[in-house]
């Protein structure tokens, strides 16, 4: 965990001899930041440690606790230190690593983990007889706090350690953790905290999160390691105009893997992971052990890959953000990211996965998947060289999480509203919570919080004569316990293999042999022999989003777990699949990038594009492309919005280049088409990618703008965020999805559990219908407010769109062109590839009705 430090023995007086000797025996000496944390802890001050990977961060966090526990006289006095990790696997990993120094120093300390996997017997024992140090996850902490014995369990708590704090604060999980932390501070007034974080853009926000606004936690910064060596693939191939994969460069990626000890190949989505994995497999002449790792795969398969990694049995792992965080999986010396990294902090974090040694630079190579991404990769490499960070800002606390927490607190015991309100305001994200909003959340928990007070008699929590709120009955507690947490997966269906259907696609004949660490191979021949009727007998391969399966008809083939599968049918909450014979999946499962381009990188890309002086470092094909754009149209200036219009194939196109990420562009596209339609310009559709947006119409928007019949500045005016937005939100499928997750987190409806099947129809409640009813009758209801807040940052990215519209006001450049511009080519190529959102729904029905007409005519 700690490597030899260059500096000599400093003022180590705080460190007991036992510890000094241990360091010395290993030829180490404690690092400055480790001693600084120890010093602060002894002064009972909270601290934030910002350190790069490999700096002995974990030991630094635990050192104060280990020292205190070692100096303790007599028996254990209950729980001393609580460690919270965003990943279950990380908690387990850290516990293992902590056991080593504890054993070597013969410390009498009990270190235990508590996760969803911990046995009931052990959980009960932990409550009765807690360990000195407990390592757990935010959800488990919530559950512990929502029980009657929380006071007894945590009353003795001295210290709390938050690992990977940067990865958790800017999320609903972070909100829940902040609320629980505020409650812990109430139970254990002397509690001090240590936050461990990678480098972030705004450390002060984290310091306030740990301490208070008036008294933020102290900041300790470990020296940065050697600068990472990040390069962009200098491809021999022709760079694609659009798309999201690395098929064009797969040979070069393969060569890099071959020359590395172990490589991690990061991609942004599960579907990309599947595609890259399959492509690598096709070129795997040498039979290299290459594995696949993503969140949808069955947990046992993921463990298998992780173990193989730790044992250095693999040459490469194709993975998604599931491997982003700090687990030390072995000897990775090269990180390859396919597709642009979307943010410099994300890139730094991923680079940190290679070479956990401070003195050696990490190596990373970016493989852009299209020409625009070349610009983005270039911007990201520069940002990394400058150490520039763009981690998301800590935001205001989510209201649905607040509702969940209030019920949890009632489950722990009766409370006075005034006390709970004061306590909640101590949680950083809720510092600005008004009493009015708190009361609305309280009433929501009690009886739904509707203006029409008809549910009082069914209330979940009730106000007692003594002025305290008490939970109505045990069922309420039980239901809360089942629904704790803020992670609402989009509905997932289990993928079950029910028929062999021939040989596994990837292990089939004619393919290179090698070790394939994917379900296809691990499954072996045992399932291949399975034939016969559709039954539940098959093996579960993992889980897949319901919305993806909605697009498939039985017989359609798709990629999952490294194989080509064909859908047999959907039975309750399981998708039954068979192995398919085909070479290529029929349905490409790419559904856009998961992470939007960060505003920071977007600004850099705009700057790069606008300044030909900076193009020296770009590949010649890209420079040529940009020069052509310069000739045929104009390069988008850094601080203005370029809009091009041109006609093509009987349609009129409008292409804008805001560089604000797909989500904001999609929302903008919805709003612009509405407006164009109202103005009689007959828009037909639009498509958005990370960089640009194209709208096509029957009428010539460009000519209308040139003649003055239409005003571009009016078209892009900020007031589209008023009525147009309202009208659209009403029917937006994205908004309904957002509402659904708020309804689950707040406890309005119960979570659907995989495996707990719908017993007959109508047991599940359609939150879409609830949304419609609520919007109509109580548009200010707290749940709609929660959904709206989410939309601002989440699926609709309204906040960013609003910023952009403000920025470009009076700064539009319109080019009416005779034909398509070079810069417009990538977005034009995406037309027809993208899925449709809400707007076009009736179109689908009309189209389907036409089939019926055609059928009638032909018969």
């Amino acid at each position, binding site marked *: 965990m700690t490597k030899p430090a260059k500096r000599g023995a400093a003022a180590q007086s705080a460190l007991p001899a036992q510890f000094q000797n241990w360091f010395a025996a290993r030829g180490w000496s404690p690092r400055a930041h480790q001693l600084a944390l120890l010093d602060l802890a002894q002064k009972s001050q909270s601290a934030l440690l910002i350190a790069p990977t490999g700096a002995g961060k974990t030991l630094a966090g635990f050192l104060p606790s280990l020292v205190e526990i070692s100096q303790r006289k007599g028996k254990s006095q209950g729980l001393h230190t609580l460690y919270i990790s965003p990943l279950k696997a990380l908690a387990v990993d850290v516990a293992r690593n902590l056991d080593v120094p504890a054993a070597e120093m013969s410390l009498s300390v009990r270190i235990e983990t508590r996760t969803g996997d911990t046995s009931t017997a052990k959980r009960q024992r932990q409550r009765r007889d807690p360990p000195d140090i407990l390592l757990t996850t935010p959800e488990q902490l919530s559950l512990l706090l929502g029980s009657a014995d929380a006071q007894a369990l945590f009353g003795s708590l001295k210290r709390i350690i938050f690992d990977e704090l940067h990865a958790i604060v800017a999320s609903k999980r972070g909100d829940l953790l902040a609320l629980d932390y505020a409650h812990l501070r109430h139970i254990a007034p002397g509690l001090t905290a240590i936050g461990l974080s990678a480098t972030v853009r705004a450390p002060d926000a984290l310091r306030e999160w740990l301490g208070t606004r008036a008294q933020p936690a102290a900041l300790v910064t470990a020296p940065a390691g050697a600068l990472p060596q990040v390069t962009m693939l200098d491809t021999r191939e022709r760079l694609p105009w659009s798309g999201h994969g690395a098929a064009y460069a797969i040979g070069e990626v393969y060569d890099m893997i071959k020359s590395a000890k172990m490589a991690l190949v990061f991609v942004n989505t599960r579907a990309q992971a599947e595609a890259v994995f399959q492509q690598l497999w096709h070129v795997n002449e040498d039979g290299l052990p290459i594995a696949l790792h993503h969140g949808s795969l069955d947990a046992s398969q993921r463990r298998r890959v992780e173990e193989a990694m730790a044992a250095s049995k693999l040459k490469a792992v194709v993975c998604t953000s599931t491997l982003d965080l700090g687990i030390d999986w072995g000897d990775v010396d090269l990180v390859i990211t396919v597709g642009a990294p979307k943010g410099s902090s994300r890139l730094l974090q991923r680079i940190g996965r290679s070479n956990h040694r401070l003195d050696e630079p990490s190596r990373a190579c970016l493989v852009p998947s299209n020409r625009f991404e070349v610009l983005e990769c270039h911007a990201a490499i520069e940002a990394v060289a400058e150490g520039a960070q763009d981690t998301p800002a800590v935001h205001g606390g989510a209201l649905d999480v607040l509702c969940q927490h209030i019920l949890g607190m009632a489950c722990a015991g009766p409370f006075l509203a005034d006390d709970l309100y004061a306590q909640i305001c101590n949680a950083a994200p809720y510092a600005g919570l008004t009493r009015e909003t708190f009361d609305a959340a309280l009433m*929501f928990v009690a009886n*739904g*919080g*509707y203006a*029409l007070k*008809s*549910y009082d008699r*069914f209330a*979940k929590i009730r106000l007692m004569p003594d002025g305290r709120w008490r939970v*109505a009955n045990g*069922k*309420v507690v039980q*239901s809360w316990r089942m629904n704790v947490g803020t992670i609402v997966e989009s509905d997932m269906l289990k993928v079950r293999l029910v028929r062999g259907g021939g040989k596994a696609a990837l292990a089939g004949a004619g393919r290179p042999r090698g070790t394939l660490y994917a379900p296809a191979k691990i499954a072996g021949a045992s399932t291949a022999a399975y034939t016969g009727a559709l039954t539940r007998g098959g093996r579960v391969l993992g889980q897949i989003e319901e919305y993806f399966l*909605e*697009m498939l*008809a039985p017989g359609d083939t798709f990629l999952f777990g490294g194989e080509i599968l064909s859908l047999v*049918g*959907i039975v309750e909450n399981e998708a039954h699949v068979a192995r398919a014979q085909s070479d290529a999946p029929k349905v490409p499962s790419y559904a856009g990038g998961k992470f939007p381009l960060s505003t920071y990188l977007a600004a850099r890309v705009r700057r790069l594009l606008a300044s030909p002086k900076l193009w020296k470092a770009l590949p010649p094909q890209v420079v040529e492309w940009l020069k052509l754009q310069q000739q045929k149209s104009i390069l988008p200036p850094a601080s203005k919005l370029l809009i091009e219009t041109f006609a093509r194939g009987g349609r009129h196109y409008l292409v804008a280049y805001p560089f604000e990420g797909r989500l904001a562009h999609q929302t903008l*596209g919805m709003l612009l*088409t509405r407006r164009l*339609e109202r103005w009689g310009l007959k*828009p*037909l*559709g*639009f*498509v958005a990618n990370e960089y640009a947006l194209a709208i096509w119409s*029957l009428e010539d928007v460009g000519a209308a703008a040139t003649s003055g019949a239409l005003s571009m500045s009016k078209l892009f005016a900020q007031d589209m965020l008023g009525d147009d937005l309202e009208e659209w939100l009403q029917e937006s499928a994205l908004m309904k999805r957002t509402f659904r997750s708020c309804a689950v987190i707040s406890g*309005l*409806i*119960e979570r659907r559990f995989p495996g707990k099947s719908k017993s007959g*129809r*109508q047991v599940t*409640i*359609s939150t879409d*219908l*609830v949304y*419609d*009813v*609520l919007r*109509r*009758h*109580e548009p200010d*209801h707290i749940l709609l407010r929660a959904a709206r807040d989410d939309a601002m940052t989440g699926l609709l990215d309204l906040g960013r769109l609003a910023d952009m519209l403000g920025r470009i006001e009076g700064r539009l450049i319109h080019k009416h062109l005779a034909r398509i511009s070079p810069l417009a080519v990538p977005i034009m190529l995406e037309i027809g590839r*993208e*899925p*449709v*959102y809400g*707007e*076009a*729904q*009736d*179109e*689908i*029905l*009309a*189209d*389907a*009705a036409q*089939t*019926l007409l055609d059928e009638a005519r032909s018969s």
Partner: protein
Amino acid sequence: MLRKHSSTRPALRDRLVAGATLRAPPAAPITVAQEIFIADVSGALWHEGTRTLVVSDLHLEKASSFAKRGIFLPPYDTAMTLARLAQVALRFQPARIIALGDSFHDREGAGRLSPEDRASLHQLQKGREWIWVAGNHDPDAPQDVGGLYCDFYELGGVILRHEPTGAPAELAGHLHPVARVTAPAGSVRRRCFISDDQRCILPAFGALAGGLNILDAAYDGLLQAPVLHVLGRNRVYSVPVTRCVPD
């Protein structure tokens, strides 16, 4: 993002037609055992010959039924369903309204009606015949809500009952049919009528009534070569089953 211009035309036409005659927007005629019905975009079925309006599965007081279990759905579903029904009644001016079963979400539902909702229901019943057909959620006559109560009803040789049996000349509800219709561009899930020339199953009319995909096994054997009449925003689209997928 396909948004063919044609799709916006019917909407405009609807408004014009509706404004001119207060009559239903383009709706789909359905012939069941030689009787002609109109599948309305609201989900109601209209029989011009007897000036009868049929609605199924109102599920009134569904939200309050869930509230008993601590699931506080917005308590406005009954008001919303009745208001929608009032709008349809205004358009058609029916002589008779038939609620085809599961009119209340549970046996005590009628008793939980708020005074306001009870009043709107009375208003709706004024000057016309009102029939409650029994459903599995409301197998007994609801108390103090007016109207006649029966197990099934016969209209011009067609039998109206809650649960479809597959017999010829039958109108039913119960299953809450919805269709997920696909196009290369994506799919959309909507309530629908499902019919052949002898039978029709009505969509649920209630604001909070969910739906069951028409490809579910529950529909097996109930209809012969059915056609769907899918409720769009402003009109009904007749769609072949071949364009539908499971949920």
